[in-house]
């Protein structure tokens, strides 16, 4: 059995467009079960839509943003949406709402917004960086 490793996960596909957030969550759950750790999750490009606090799928469908939020909180895993991807696509936290005088914020906790430096740091520090793209 391999030693315990640290993983950075990068999600670039949006929910309700691609399968990426769902596959990534199954992978993340299995990684923790195997004794590995996930040092961070980074949302990039269309993947930032996973961090929307306003996603409202029909009640009989999987709610990926909520499932991810629960998972991240339970295991205390930091998760970041890329600020450049997020601002263009209308994914906004309190700080950016104030800075740009926007009418609302819609970032789902515990996701945070930060720069690509988070990704650079994650992919340097982690033993493995795994990307989950759209189809």
């Amino acid at each position, binding site marked *: 059995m391999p030693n315990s490793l640290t993983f950075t996960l990068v999600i670039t596909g949006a929910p309700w*467009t*691609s399968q990426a957030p769902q596959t990534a969550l199954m992978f993340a759950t299995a990684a923790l079960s195997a004794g590995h750790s996930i040092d961070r999750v980074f949302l990039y490009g269309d993947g930032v839509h996973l961090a929307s606090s306003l996603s409202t799928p029909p009640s009989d469908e999987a709610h990926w943003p909520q499932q991810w939020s629960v998972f991240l909180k339970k295991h205390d895993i930091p998760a970041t949406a890329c600020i450049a991807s997020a601002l263009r696509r209308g994914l906004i936290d309190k700080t950016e709402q104030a800075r740009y005088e926007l009418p609302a914020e819609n970032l789902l906790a515990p996701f945070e917004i930060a720069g690509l430096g988070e990704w650079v740091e994650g992919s340097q520090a982690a033993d493995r960086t795994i990307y989950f793209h759209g189809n």
Partner: protein
Amino acid sequence: MSTLIVIDQAPYGFWTGREALDMAFSLAAFDQPAAMLFTGAGVNWLRKGQRPDGVGQKSAEKNLSAAPLFGIEALIADEHACQQYGLTESTMLPGVELVSNIRDVLGDHKHVVFAG
């Protein structure tokens, strides 16, 4: 004359097919004639026995099987694409019409629509 809704992307990996199906159902609900064409990787919508529990989605097969009830006039599949993806009569949903000439199918409908 009918609207043809075209699905050319595979289920589960893409969401577009589900939104195409909603378009067809919506036309039927407003008493507008609608048919569906499956081509390219879209023919994988038609395979019997889909069990998507492990990927956290609802069954595309089950969604699609409601098409006749909703009043969709025809489910049409590109014969060549079915061959490419190994779909045969025994592995395919019943009631699907196979066609070899897509150009004729497109010509038969006033509106031809992709969902995305």
